[in-house]
């Protein structure tokens, strides 16, 4: 049967039309043509503006006839378009009354909020034509990628090891040796490296279309161009950033990113996206018209009673996430990424904003967060909140979770950093952090806790042990930007040094950090490059640096092979031992009749931890019969941490008859004996006690 709605009913300047379908929003292929659908609560008129690719002026503007609008939705089918050669946008008319929240301007051509690909910044860093009347243009995209048998991997949350990565930074450095540097295709070429490292999830910093030229400027002293490099400022929520794709100039970024996801999945690696729904690239009153401002300003943005933009994001505007219309676009967007791109999880930038009502007050039961948690398409996706915002809301431990949401655990980061640098009085805090923060997530379990010591915000791991203070002069803001609460320690000298004692202590501190991270309950996250001791020269906020400060230097693979080996063996050790990957909190009791509690605490004397305020030592033992709540049996594991500047003997808890302690990790011993491959750990000669060097970590396996 041929469809009867596949024929035009009207013609406008040679273009054949018929009334469109309201659903789905955006541009969709239908037999013989393209269905365009867009909504606005306050527009009085709307035209579809079509361009031939790259042309300065439109080829046609087609006003939506009255009967093509249902409710607030304008929809129209246009037949016989050469889809590869079309760029489209909308022109909207309506009130311009900023005090009432309206900023319609019919002189502007607007990007479709549902655009699935966007041209205008096709090749990264290529200076645009600033006179362009329509700089970010919506493109037509086929949703027909050949996925074979792929689907999201659904690795259990507790089994993940996350690797946070910036797409461009990963392979842009000339040393990467990839064919398409700085792109999605470039990452594909580095799959063997990721496999060697052993992480099973990569979290991509923003890949939604953004404008690297937003607020770009020249550093007054260095002459370096500073850009919106990280990309935490969205132009289009449904479109992958063209400039991160080698095929961006051909408009094939969608296929290229999907090919990356498919390849990663084939290698057992999940893909998370860092998504920015808290604000857009349109800035405040002085910002440009890109899309939302001209389509329905009052709906999309949180506005003060006077019509100014609330600034809970610290970037000029705040998306009005709990307006029902905006809530739906966020939901549509995530559903699209989960179903069309097979994305495994999302990390929400400044997620606390998503829980504010239209006047900015925190909601106790935010509908958006609830919708996401209960959505059928997102049902198996991991949802991770950055549980604070720039407006002072700090919800680590209290983010509305609906049994689904995990959080970046800022308290884990701060506690571990302070303990690592040798601050006293932290052992009780560390005991909680290592257990997956039961004080914060008692009802949610350790998988609610994304444990990390470093992330893109702040120092790299190497800088954390090399700098006491931030050194952000390269950002051109007089070292005023970036956080001051780094909890870092330079080990005796600020910055690089040839002092071998300091350098070996720094290396040891990095090993201590990753060792503690990977034996903690919860979900560990590693920052790209930390495994090779990547430095940003003490810059703790490299958001604007398109250069070696951010680029992953692959030459480090030679000079830092010791650290890489340590990282990758720590990851493999974690993944070999289910005892570190419990779904529920440890009880500190013996509920399986093993004779030992699931976790027991020790000090220089076994069974006698020093909880005092001057203590810098803590050891614990995980009993193997309790792994995964007692469902599986694992080895007993003993972990001792000495953050004191002196070495100490630790008495070892005795193992059941027939079992002995073998050493897996001892960070105070020179490589290659600092860490042993899983299954090859040598037995300790002395089963009664072990000497921990100053500032070191020991991990033993009972077998």
């Amino acid at each position, binding site marked *: 049967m041929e469809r009867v709605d596949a024929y035009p009913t009207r013609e406008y300047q040679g273009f054949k039309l018929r009334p469109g379908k309201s659903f789905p929003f955006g541009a969709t292929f239908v037999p013989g043509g393209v269905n365009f659908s867009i909504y606005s609560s306050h527009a009085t008129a709307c035209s579809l503006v079509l361009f031939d690719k790259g042309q300065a002026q439109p080829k046609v503007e087609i006003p939506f006839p009255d009967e093509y609008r249902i409710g607030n939705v304008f929809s129209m089918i246009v037949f016989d378009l*050469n*889809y*590869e*050669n079309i760029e489209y946008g909308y022109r909207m008319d309506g009130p311009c009354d900023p005090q009432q929240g309206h900023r319609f301007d019919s002189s502007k051509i607007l990007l479709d909020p549902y655009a699935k690909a966007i041209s205008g910044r096709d090749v990264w860093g290529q200076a645009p034509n600033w006179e362009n009347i329509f700089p970010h243009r919506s493109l037509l995209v*086929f949703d*027909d*990628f*050949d996925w*074979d048998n792929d689907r999201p991997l659904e690795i259990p949350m507790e089994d993940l090891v996350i690797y946070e990565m910036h797409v461009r930074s990963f392979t842009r450095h000339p040393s990467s040796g990839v*064919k*398409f540097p700085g*792109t999605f*295709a470039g990452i*594909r070429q580095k799959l063997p490296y990721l496999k060697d490292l052993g992480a099973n999830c990569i979290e991509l910093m923003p890949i939604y279309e953004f404008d690297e030229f937003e607020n770009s400027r020249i550093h007054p002293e260095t002459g370096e161009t500073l850009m919106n490099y990280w990309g935490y400022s969205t132009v289009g929520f449904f479109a992958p950033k063209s400039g991160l*794709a*080698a*095929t961006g100039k*051909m*408009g*094939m970024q969608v*296929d*290229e990113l*999907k*090919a*990356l996801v*498919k*390849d990663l999945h084939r290698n057992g690696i999940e893909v998370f996206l860092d998504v920015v729904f808290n604000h857009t690239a349109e800035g405040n009153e002085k910002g440009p018209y890109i899309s939302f401002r001209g389509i329905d300003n009052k709906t999309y943005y949180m506005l003060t009673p006077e019509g100014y933009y609330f600034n809970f994001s610290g970037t000029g505007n705040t998306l009005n996430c709990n307006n029902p219309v905006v809530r739906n676009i966020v939901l549509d967007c995530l559903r699209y990424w989960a179903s069309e791109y097979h994305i495994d999880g999302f990390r929400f930038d400044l997620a606390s904003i998503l829980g504010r009502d239209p006047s900015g007050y925190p909601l106790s039961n935010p509908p958006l967060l609830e919708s996401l948690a209960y959505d059928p398409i997102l049902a198996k996706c991991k949802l991770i909140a950055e549980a604070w915002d720039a407006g002072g809301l700090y919800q680590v431990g209290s983010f509305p979770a609906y049994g689904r949401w995990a959080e970046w655990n800022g308290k884990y980061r701060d506690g571990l950093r302070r303990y690592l640098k040798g601050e006293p009085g932290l052992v009780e805090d560390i005991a909680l952090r290592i257990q997956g923060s039961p004080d914060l997530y008692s009802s949610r379990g350790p998988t609610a806790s994304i444990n990390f010591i470093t992330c893109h915000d702040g120092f790299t791991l190497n800088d954390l042990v090399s700098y006491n203070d931030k050194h952000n002069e390269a950002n051109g803001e007089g070292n005023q930007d970036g956080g001051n609460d780094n909890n870092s320690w330079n080990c005796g000298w600020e910055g690089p040094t040839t002092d071998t004692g300091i350098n070996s202590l720094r290396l040891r501190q990095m090993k201590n950090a990753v060792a503690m991270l990977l034996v903690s309950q919860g979900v560990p996250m590693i920052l790209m490059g930390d495994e090779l001791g990547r430095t940003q020269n003490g810059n703790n906020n490299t958001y604007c640096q398109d250069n070696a400060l951010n680029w992953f230097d692959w030459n480090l693979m030679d000079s830092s092979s010791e650290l890489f080996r340590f990282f990758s063996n720590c990851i493999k050790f974690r993944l070999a031992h289910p005892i570190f990957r419990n779904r529920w909190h440890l009880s500190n009791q013996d509920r399986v009749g093993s004779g030992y509690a699931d976790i027991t605490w020790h000090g220089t004397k076994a069974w006698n931890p020093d909880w005092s305020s001057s203590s810098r030592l803590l050891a614990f033992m995980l009993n193997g019969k309790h792994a995964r709540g007692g469902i599986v049996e694992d080895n007993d594991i003993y972990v001792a941490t000495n953050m004191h500047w002196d070495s100490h003997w630790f008495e070892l808890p005795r193992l059941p008859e027939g079992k002995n302690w073998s050493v897996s990790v001892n960070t105070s011993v020179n490589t290659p004996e600092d860490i042993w491959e899983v299954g090859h750990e040598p037995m300790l000669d002395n089963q009664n006690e072990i000497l921990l060097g100053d500032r070191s970590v020991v991990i033993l396996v009972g077998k």
Partner: protein
Amino acid sequence: MAFSVTLKMLKNGVAELSLVGELDASVANEFKLAVEKAAAENAKNLVLNMKDLDFMSSAGLRVLVFAKQKMGFDVDIYVIAAQEAVRETIEMTGFHHSVIMQDEFIAI
């Protein structure tokens, strides 16, 4: 340059399509029809000679996907002598995993 595609049945059930010129959305349907014709001949192998193909857009790539699905899983698709730009397009979008890329056709 104008696009053309010619189908030649070789021995052993090999269908050879020679692609010439620039393959984009405006001509992709000609390529698709040729693939359908090859499928109708019950070809065992599909050989795409791209020696003289100067450009392939996303629409062309989609026909490759179509070919793979239309011909069935038993049919191997060979991409022969693709020029650098075309080869890169196929690589960047990951499609080289689904076809056999060769300089000249040697049945595997």
